[in-house]
């Protein structure tokens, strides 16, 4: 079955056994920045039904939480779900148990980077990193620079599309070539320093 093949934790018999589960992972997830008591989840599926990006995910958010319960660390961290999540917060708004699922996804991203687990969507880590770097540098996003930074990971066709789109935006004055500036840069960078101190990658 297709679903089984997706599980890195399952053995060649497609059976999950206790030995391949990481007992400490659940505690780690609960303790991490943005971690919550995921045991509160009743597996109702509101998040899965609400998620507008679920078509691009290999597991629904609900399945990710279920795998956290069991301790399927490898499968969770190598899944595309944690990178596809757009943090639109529809799931968290509707979750009857009050779980902040996008926050859990961000926490899992952090762990995945820390543990050097290659992301299924290669561009995503690079994108996040470049995005954060630019924001740290200028205090605001600067799209042309982001475009250049991730260009080596983008497929040529997508790059062309992005470039054309960028030119349109430029013509309409929605995009500035000059780097943006914000006031009180010092405070801004201390914010980033604190975040990385607390484990953000």
């Amino acid at each position: 079955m297709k679903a089984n093949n997706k599980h890195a934790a399952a053995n060649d018999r497609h059976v999950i056994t206790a030995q391949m589960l990481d007992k400490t992972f659940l505690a780690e997830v609960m303790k991490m920045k943005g971690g919550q008591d995921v045991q509160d989840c009743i597996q109702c599926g509101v998040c899965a039904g609400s998620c507008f990006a679920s078509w691009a995910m290999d597991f629904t958010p609900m399945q990710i939480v279920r795998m956290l319960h069991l301790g399927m660390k490898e499968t969770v961290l190598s899944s595309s779900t944690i990178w596809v999540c757009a943090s639109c917060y529809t799931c968290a708004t509707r979750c009857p148990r009050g779980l902040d699922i996008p926050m859990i996804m961000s926490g899992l991203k952090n762990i995945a980077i820390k543990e050097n687990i290659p992301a299924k969507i290669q561009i995503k880590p690079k994108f996040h990193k470049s995005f954060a770097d630019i924001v740290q540098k200028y205090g605001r996003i600067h799209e042309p620079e982001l475009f250049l930074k991730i260009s080596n990971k983008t497929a040529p066709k997508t790059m062309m599309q992005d470039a054309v789109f960028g030119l349109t935006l430029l013509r309409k004055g929605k995009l500035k070539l000059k780097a943006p500036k914000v006031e009180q840069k010092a405070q801004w960078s201390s914010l980033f320093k604190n975040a990385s101190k607390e484990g953000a990658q």
Partner: protein
Amino acid sequence: MNPEPKIGVYICRCGCDKEGNISATVDVEKLKEAAAAMPGVKAAEVYEFVCSNPGQQMIRDGIKQHKLNRIVVAACSPRMHLETFRRNVKQEGLNPYLLEIANIREQCSWIHEDRKLATIKAIDLVGRAVERARNLKPLEEKTVKVNRDALVIGGGIAGINASIELADKGFQVYLVEKGPSVGGHMAQLGKTFPTLDCSSCIITPKMVYVAQHPLIKILSLSEVTKVEGMPGNYKITITKRPRSVDASKCTACGECSRKCPVTVKSEFEVGMGQRKAIYQPFRQAVPSAYYIDREHCLYFTKGICKVCQKFCKASAVDFTQQEETIELNVGAIVVSTGYELLDPHYVKQYSYGLHPDIVTHLQFERLLVQGLHRPSTGEQPKKIAFILCVGSRMTQNGVGNGNGNGNGEEGDACEYCCNIGCMNAIKEAYVFQKEVPDADPWVFYTDIRAHGKGYEEFYARLRNHGVRFVRGRTAEVMPHNGSLRVRAADTLLGLPIEEDFDMVVLSAGLTPSQGTDNLARMVGIHTGSDGFFLERHHKLRPVDTQREGVYACGCALGPKDIRETITESMAAASHVASFLGKGEVAVSSEVAIIDDKKCDNCEKCITICPARAIVKTSETHVEINPMSCIGCGICVPVCPKNAIDLNHNTEAQLMGQIRGNPPKEDLSPKIVAFIEKNTAYAAADLAGQTRSQYGANVRIVSVPSVGRVGLKHMLQVFASGADGVALIEGEDSSFTGDKVREHLTRLKKELQPYGIESLRLVSTTTTIPQYPKMVETFEVFNSRLFKMGPLSPKVRSEIEKKLKEVQ
């Protein structure tokens, strides 16, 4: 008044010679010698089994021979044989409350191995019992006459059935109903699961029976506004709203209603139908009389019309009726106020209120009874989505949602399961299939809970019957091109599912009836964290409330189905009958008493009493109701005037037991443990039965609750040679863990000026099986005290001096 105490001490070997359960570890002969030397002891005997017939005979002979008027039995736990010994001394004409037991088996011989230490401890325990016995007072078992009438609040199926059960047993019943008719939610239902009985066909006969029963008086349009008095003799004030129709004349012909020009949405039809301003909620209403809704009636709002009066052939319409106040005297109260549906507006993603075809399951019931149609177009729906767990099993509605708008408010969601949603939706899907030939019902569920008799089979039948079950809580419902689009995830496949439906039925959660809190305060009972009334004991007393003589049944206690409601109403009726049946109720004599002369009405005791037994009857008089009092004694140390005392655990008795007759060579450091007499004491017994070892320097004094122990007692404990005090409360006691900790902190603070370190006090709560935790507390405390050393003699002598000054 009391003759000089002549105490007899009877020591049990609990076996033969040196092999006995007690005599193997305790030198009983030495114990006898020490006991005989204690002041007031006239006789001391040792026997193999004091609980046996010859043993009992020995005690009776002693009473005769030495004219003994106090008996101390040094044997096993009072939980074992207290009643045996009490019956025995009663035979010889001695008041049973003049007997005291020193527990030298569970608390001594079974937990120690060192013969010398165990003997010293046994002497101390007997010494304490002797001192307590010296101060014992005879008590009489009292009874109080009770009123044999009962009040039932709420006229749903629970209240109706409880009334019938009680009236059939011969009790006069007053059934109070807020609305114009009894029947409750059950009268609104179409069919019932899993047997598909017609709901109104099975409730109507019961309603008629209630109406015609000579011993049941229905008070419709009435609400309880005041509850006074005490268990067995409650005084109830009821406010009865005017019906504006003389119920004795009205023939329920319905002519008035047909002529009435005002039309409003019907409450009975849950907005799915209309009624007039003069109306009967439904045809089989009981009492069978019409009712004028003064909020909408043109005569009452604008002073015109009076059409109904003109057309009434029985001239029953009476615009002059006034609000009435009725006073009743009853012995017991049954609360059966039922539930209310949670407002689905609160769960915004289901768009309730945005489209007429999105209805609650109760509205759907009405639509089924009326002949199924879509409220928007009136056509027959072909495809219906049943959405379960709407507002149930939620701890919160997620982040960033702010206040739920609509009529619901944040916090409206219920964490508990609604208990009936699954089966009800399955039933409705089935009835829908029966009504509509090519019906296509879908049930979106979180977990199907089919836990009653025949429920699982019903569910299985429906699965093979063309009902589509989708496991996944619905994400959203959107009006879409004239139909309703439902989006959910099939969680078993991990795939989203999106489908258009003609109608959406929301199984909304069940919440406590409006005014539940208010009624709880009025009657003096509690509600739980879910907002429903709280039972006395979840397993063993499920229909009793915290207050004696007040019972509850049905959905007032929590969501449940009709079958369970009926069971509970019968149980409540049966408990009322046992409470009122004899016409009198035995009252425990171990209750608090108040001395009017000393009391200055400060009301401190009233605030602290967990049983609401203390009431201010007039400006200058505070009274303790012996029937409500649970004898915990928390009020005693709270009283600044020493006006309160607790029978059978009086100040003199407790102080005597604390002082005791200390043996000449005692252990040091010494720990006195005050333990609650039921749960914690049983835990200590269990420690003995399992032969758990703890220090022989721990001496147990049983108290009704550790709240009984105040500063005075603490000082006496330390003055009488203790170096540390442990307070151990049972976990299920009315004196909860938080209160115990608070109490301990207060005592520590109060003891500081006397030079007693706060580390010399310790407290914990325990359940019976948690006895190892209690033993561990003793051991840890013991090693701490060994390090600290005994209390300095200087501090001790100063406390002694101060105590003498106080007395």
